């Protein structure tokens, strides 16, 4: 968005405590080569702890490594 007015469907990114980044709205995820990565759903969770086996998406494994985000 180039204007301060945000469209209703503009993308939002929410860091959830001790968890992933939840992305909503109108977004597209691209591979490094620029090819779109299918998200498969309207709201996605992006890995923030680094141990997901389906990166860039979250697979819930942050719980097993006790990922903490205190200080966010």
């Amino acid at each position, binding site marked *: 968005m180039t204007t301060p007015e945000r469209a209703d469907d503009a993308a939002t990114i929410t860091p*959830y405590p001790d968890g*992933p980044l*939840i992305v909503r709205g109108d977004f597209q995820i691209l591979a490094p080569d620029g090819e779109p990565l299918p998200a498969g*759903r*309207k*709201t996605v969770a992006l890995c923030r702890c680094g141990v997901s*086996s*389906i990166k860039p998406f979250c*697979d*819930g494994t942050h719980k097993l490594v006790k990922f903490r985000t205190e200080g966010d």
Partner: protein
Amino acid sequence: MTATMHAHKAPDSNAVFPMTPRGPLSAELMTLLSSTPDGTDPTTGLALAIESALDAAASITRDEDIQLSLFILYGLHYGSFASVSADWEWQPSLVAARTALERAFEAELRSTIAVPELPQPTRDAVAQTLSALTSAEGGPSLSRYVASKATAEQLGEFLIQRSIYTLREADPHSWAIPRLTGRVKAALVEIQTDEYGGGRVARMHSEIFATTMRSYGLDARYGHYLPDVPAITLASLNVMSMFGLNRRLRGAIVGHLAAFEMTSSIPNGLYARGFRRLGHGTEVTAYFDEHVAADAVHEQIAAHDLAGALAEDQPELLGDILFGAAACLEVDGWAGNHMLESWTAGRSSLRVDQ
């Protein structure tokens, strides 16, 4: 049978129900519901059958006759049995029957299931309590067994046991949508939209599961395996239906969904691994793969935006939110343990319909 005492003409019950009764109460219900309502309310026979079924049950959660009866009564609302007249749905004696069974079932669950100490009714505190509750180590694990040990036959049983809920996946929690308001309703709808495939029927989780069943050589018609599943499997769905269909228990259905979603991604990854281990491809594993990614999203929304926000908006529901979460973990744990214990003892987890 007591069909004659309420003067309903009862055809062969096998034409209407795919299973045989599991005791006097389910027999009474199946005979009654195989007829067409004639305007009279068949209270007496049913009320007596319920009284003696409740008296006779050592555990309501594990009683075959009672859990099948509850499943049949909820089936009136879901439309689980295509040949049963829809006119039975709000018949006062049937609503009374369901309510009587539910009160006893709920009382048993509340007296046997430990609920964590209530946190402050804030989003973060409730999400943290749910996180601690759902990550507690639970002993032997069905998902680890499926990943590394289960045989082809046991994986088939696993799909059969799961089919009772999963071919109707998300439906019990959807009853709660009109009972919630504002941001909590929006959070539930955000989850349920994904459960129903975002409007694409082929992406509906229940449809993906049907594809998995058919690809495994199983019958995906709803209720086909009803005769084969024990009370504890029916209880797992009946808990959700009870929480979902009773507005007073809306806190419990929200807590149930939160616990369900928060214990889903990692086990589903292990289930997928079990099916791959025996050589199955994405036509079978797609359902489990989908749930790894989907429920990693849903669990965040469910813990914070749904359960946490509901506790903040309606603090009086906090106790029920945690009760619903604990009930989900306990009852589904019992159902999982039934499979695990049967298999490790060299038995089938399915029952033989008499």
